[in-house]
């Protein structure tokens, strides 16, 4: 029936634009039989290379994604799509503005997604913001190398750095921070004029906000150095620092990924690498949905295609 209607409609469209506009009024009459509205779930997912998707699928133990899933291109796209689709389900980053997009965050296994639950590990769906630097001695100058080391120390270990990252949306454990004034003693480089040094960064766009805030706040602490951020995607983070593009157009000093570096990406040669913040992945549904809590099991069933009705979700 649908097929026939569609063919009819496409004919209508063609007729509508090539001949008289009056012709199509008659044909709509008999097509107006409304069929019963189904509430089958529309499954939204990110493209296969997304760090968010990786974290999400790992958390729900997904083996094979249903073939009817709809791929969206970005976090914001996901929020918009689910916000306009009453039957949609998807997942976004914790820093998303849920209300503005007309979506509702779901508790995962009974745990509400929040900074506390992410930090204490009770909220299961999370991913790290990772960084990797160039190999020691490969920075072009020792001043730059020292400055990068100082920045990494500031970013990961100082109270000030962590505060900045947190205020920009990253989840960090402030209790582990040390005041920068103490750490700075190990980095004499910050006490000189560094305005001729430019640090370039590459990699994930998800880290952009936190990274920008951290870099900006570090500038006056470390002799007004310059920085260039070229955030294009997690894949480029490793490539441009240690991988195939490390000497090319897009070479960078520090690379970032919104996931752990995988086995293809050998970070052992780097001067330093690790993670500086955590981001949580939150399952979302349309704001009109009555659901408020979901289990990994249900999500697994929904995303593998065996569960297709919200009424059956328990």
């Amino acid at each position: 029936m649908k097929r026939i209607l569609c063919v009819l409609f496409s004919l209508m469209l063609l007729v509508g634009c090539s001949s008289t506009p009056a012709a199509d009024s008659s044909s709509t009459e008999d097509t107006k039989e409304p069929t019963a509205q189904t509430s089958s779930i529309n499954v939204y997912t990110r493209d296969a290379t997304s760090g968010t998707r990786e974290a999400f699928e790992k958390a729900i133990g997904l083996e094979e994604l249903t073939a009817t899933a709809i791929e969206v291109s970005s976090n914001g796209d996901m929020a918009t799509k689910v916000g306009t689709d009453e039957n949609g389900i998807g997942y976004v980053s914790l820093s998303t503005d849920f209300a503005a997009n007309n979506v509702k965050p779901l508790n995962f296994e009974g745990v509400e997604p929040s900074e506390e639950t992410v930090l204490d590990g009770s909220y299961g769906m999370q991913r790290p913001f990772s960084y990797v630097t160039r190999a020691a001695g490969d920075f072009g100058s020792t001043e730059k190398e020292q400055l990068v080391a100082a920045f990494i120390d500031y970013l990961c270990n100082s109270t000030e750095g962590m505060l900045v990252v947190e205020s920009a949306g990253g989840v960090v454990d402030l209790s582990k921070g040390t005041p920068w004034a103490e750490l700075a003693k190990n980095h004499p480089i910050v006490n000189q004029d560094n305005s001729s040094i430019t640090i370039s960064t590459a990699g994930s766009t998800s880290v952009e906000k936190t990274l920008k805030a951290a870099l900006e706040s570090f500038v006056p602490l470390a002799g007004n150095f310059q920085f260039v951020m070229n955030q294009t995607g997690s894949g480029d983070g490793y490539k441009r620092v240690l991988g195939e593009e490390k000497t090319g157009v897009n070479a960078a000093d520090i690379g970032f990924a919104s996931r752990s570096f995988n086995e293809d990406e050998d970070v052992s040669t780097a001067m330093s690498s690790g993670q500086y913040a955590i981001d949580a992945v939150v399952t979302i549904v349309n704001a009109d949905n009555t659901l408020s809590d979901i289990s990994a099991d249900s999500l697994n069933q929904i995303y593998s295609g065996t569960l297709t009705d919200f009424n059956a979700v328990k």
Partner: protein
Amino acid sequence: MIDASKEKKNKLIDGICKTFFLAMAILSSSFIVILVLFIFMKGISPFLPGYEFGQVNIIDFLFGTTYRQDQGIYGVGFIVINTLISAFASLLLSFPISVLCALFIVKIAPKKLSVLMKSVVELLASVPSIVYGVFASGLIVIFVKWLASIFGITTAGGSSLLAVIILLAIMIFPTITSMSITAIQAVDKDLENASLALGATRTQTNFKVVLTSAKSGIFAGAILGIGRAFGEATAVSMVAGNKLFGPTFDLFDITRTLTSTMLAGLKETSGLDYDIRFSVGIVLLFVIFFSNWLLNSLKNRIGKNS
């Protein structure tokens, strides 16, 4: 008055100019060779034995009906069909409207209105495609959803083949219209006057003489337009939904085009999944060449009849 040395100099300059023009023409057309070589070198490698991430069967690639990065299944057969459907359908939708709109602007509209409309069309040709994408995911999608609900069909929030078609039709509209405007303006006034003098009405003249005389230019616009429809990536990927299998014939079902496949996660990936996008690029180039050839021969045939 004629100075022999001057003559010699003139001749020399003439020769230099000719060589320069030829060199530039060769340079211009050599870029395509560089491009094709470059993309071939990258895109062929997954099909060669000894490929570092595991050789891909080219038959499966070309005729496959599933494309799933997560399982390493790469088949673009259905995507080619989807791409052809969406591009040609958008052309079908946009072509008559654009041509008639151009006719209106050049021949029917009062001077002031025509200038205004022309400027609007010119302006829209330079709207960044991402803005069209935003427009599509904001408005077109809602329209499609509403349309589907009339038929009692649920859609994936409006992302669908139909949304892609409407989006592309809107995007190629300025291209075809401005080319058609140029073509219609170039029609000889004498031809028109001759038709009017034979007692044809203004409208008959417009349709029978003006449009037929301008059809070569109009067709060139159509070719440019469909080129844009094939190559559009950013906006399309926002409403396509990137279906994992296909082909899609249902207007309200989600779809996947070659460009949206190339773009999805391009920056986050490496290895086979990265290289295979260049193979998709080769397929896209072939699709474009093929349809250009098709339209060009159609254009020549229509041209011959008159």
